[in-house]
């Protein structure tokens, strides 16, 4: 994996059901910690965007473009929000992910490098290069 990426990184927060086990005081504490964390990263110029997502939505899939309910709110895998990070290395992004206040409660943070261009376009380039080789 590249350890340098000029396009930044995305943190995807996974888990929608973990807050149910918390007391109101714990919830308030985690919320305050999370907000302070995001504010600090924004002030440092390390976070450029971030948003929570409502727990429910719809899934559109396949050739027939079928619409179904989902993801289920209680899913451990469902995405609850994201941060977009402007840091230069993968290690920096992972270090930030490890500060996530939700981790002790079961939240999982996916760290993904942002691509410079659409994967379709880079696939096409590879095919053209192979054809010309």
């Amino acid at each position, binding site marked *: 994996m590249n350890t340098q990426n000029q396009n930044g990184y995305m943190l995807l927060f996974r888990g929608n059901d973990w807050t149910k086990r918390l007391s109101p005081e714990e919830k308030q504490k985690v919320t305050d910690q999370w907000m302070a964390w995001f504010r600090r990263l924004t002030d440092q110029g390390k976070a450029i965007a971030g948003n929570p997502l409502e727990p429910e939505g719809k899934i559109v899939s396949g050739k027939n473009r079928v619409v179904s309910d989902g993801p289920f709110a209680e899913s451990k*895998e469902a995405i609850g929000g994201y941060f977009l990070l402007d840091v230069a290395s993968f290690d920096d992004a992972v270090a930030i992910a490890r500060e996530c206040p939700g981790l002790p409660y079961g939240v999982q943070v996916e760290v993904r490098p*942002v691509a410079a261009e659409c994967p379709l376009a880079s696939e096409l380039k590879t095919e053209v290069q192979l054809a010309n080789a």
Partner: protein
Amino acid sequence: MNTQDRNGYMLLYRSSEWYKTLSQEELQKLINQNKAWFERLTAQGKAKPGRALERTGVTVSGKNGRFVMDGPFAESKEAIGGYLILDVETIEEAIAIAQSSPGLAYGGSIEVRPMAEECPLDIRSRELAREEQLVNV
């Protein structure tokens, strides 16, 4: 569910690397379709720039982030390949836009999610406080 959301919607593209099976011509056609689709939505003020994600990464979990695992795996059908933010007012319109996405013809799925104005934790915390007040009345 609210069908109105002034914070917009997020489209999360979920798929395997299905495009690896396409020929050069098919790929070029799809790229052109995607470009035209996105340019139209942007011109209408309905889409903001999205991003594609590399098919690599790690997942951090556990207290103090002590577990760092490779993944998601590129071949996973559930892996997120990119996202788009829509500035439209109803989930119906966001769904219609997702349905018009050129890549869907080849499989995969798109998750349509309302963006929250504030953290759901805050909202839940207020609800609990209200419930407590009612009990104490």
